[in-house]
């Protein structure tokens, strides 16, 4: 993948936005906010944050959370799920699979296709 090394947009990323203490209440909003597409250095951080958020959901709440997202949100969620699969940690894949099942029910195969064809990485 090509890395944009000439961009200095990462300097404008507000690191406090990614403070985990901020996310206790509004988990979905946090997922959307942390999902702002950014250049590489913050992408890793964003991925970590999103994974934490996804893990903090109770299994029973996942479906509701996915239903509340719009089409673009579901596509973005799928992107993060697959990014999470790429670098599995101890428990991450199990959680991600649960999210994947719910997201697939809403977004269908089309959302996965859009993950595969997307050129903007998250």
């Amino acid at each position, binding site marked *: 993948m090509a890395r944009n090394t000439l961009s200095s947009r990462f300097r404008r990323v507000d690191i406090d936005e990614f403070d985990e203490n901020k996310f206790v209440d509004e988990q979905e909003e946090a997922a959307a906010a942390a999902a702002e597409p950014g250049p590489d250095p913050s992408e890793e951080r964003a991925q970590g944050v999103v994974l934490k958020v996804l893990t903090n959901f109770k299994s029973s709440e996942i479906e509701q959370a996915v239903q509340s997202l719009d*089409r*673009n949100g579901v*596509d973005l969620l799928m992107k993060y799920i697959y990014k999470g699969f790429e670098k599995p940690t101890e428990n991450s894949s199990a959680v991600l699979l649960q999210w994947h099942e719910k997201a697939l029910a*809403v*977004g*269908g*195969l*089309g*959302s996965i*296709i*859009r993950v595969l*064809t*997307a*050129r*903007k990485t998250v």
Partner: protein
Amino acid sequence: MSLHQFLLEPITCHAWNRDRTQIALSPNNHEVHIYKKNGSQWVKAHELKEHNGHITVLSLDWHPNNVLLAAGSCDFKCRVFSAYIKEVDEKPASTPWGSKMPFGQLMSEFGGSGTGGWVHGVSFSASGSRLAWVSHDSTVSVADASKSVQVSTLKTEFLPLLSVSFVSENSVVAAGHDCCPMLFNYDDRGCLTFVSKLDIPKQSIQRNMSAMERFRNMDKRATTEDRNTALETLHQNSITQVSIYEVDKQDCRKFCTTGIDGAMTIWDFKTLESSIQGLRIM
């Protein structure tokens, strides 16, 4: 039936203009060649090379005015060109796509920019002011030139669609890797929505299993039972092309699909409207 060998290279796609006097084809690269019939010979009238960077053109469709050409390509873009040849065509009236249409002029370009996929199919509406295309990122898009070229894109939850055609000014049929034609509606406010799949398994048209298929099953799977791995849809493999069979793009009553399964089906809207509840082509 006669065969005409245009080129040595493979032809990726072709499109006839309305009068069937010119054919546009793409020889598996970024060019579009336009041939015109001269008596019994085909003569290359012109070449369009605007799709830069050797990006293959995957699909073509002529505008009803015989001058504008839409092309979908592998660089994720859909472009509208003018193929106006002064000596051949009569000067076209101005269209919502533009009034000056010198040869090779790029009238509009859609897509690209980080998202999207190969544009597999393009289709002008009967009036020519709307253009629909389907792309490999499982989206359907419609551009309406009469509304200052506003583009509406619908992200579907299906596998990518490969071919698309307008069947009325507000309705679009597309089909692809899901082996099933789908109906979409584009209303006058610019809203593109999915209406329905058009291949509902309960249809009474049955495929007969031929003797050859029975023996093949016996050979491959040691069973004479049929359909244990068959798809529920009529087509057993991806549909690669949708075409209008009866009447035209303004008011299509029947359309035809062909696919990688080697089969061809003709779909009748009268039957579909009665078998699928609430379905109406608008």
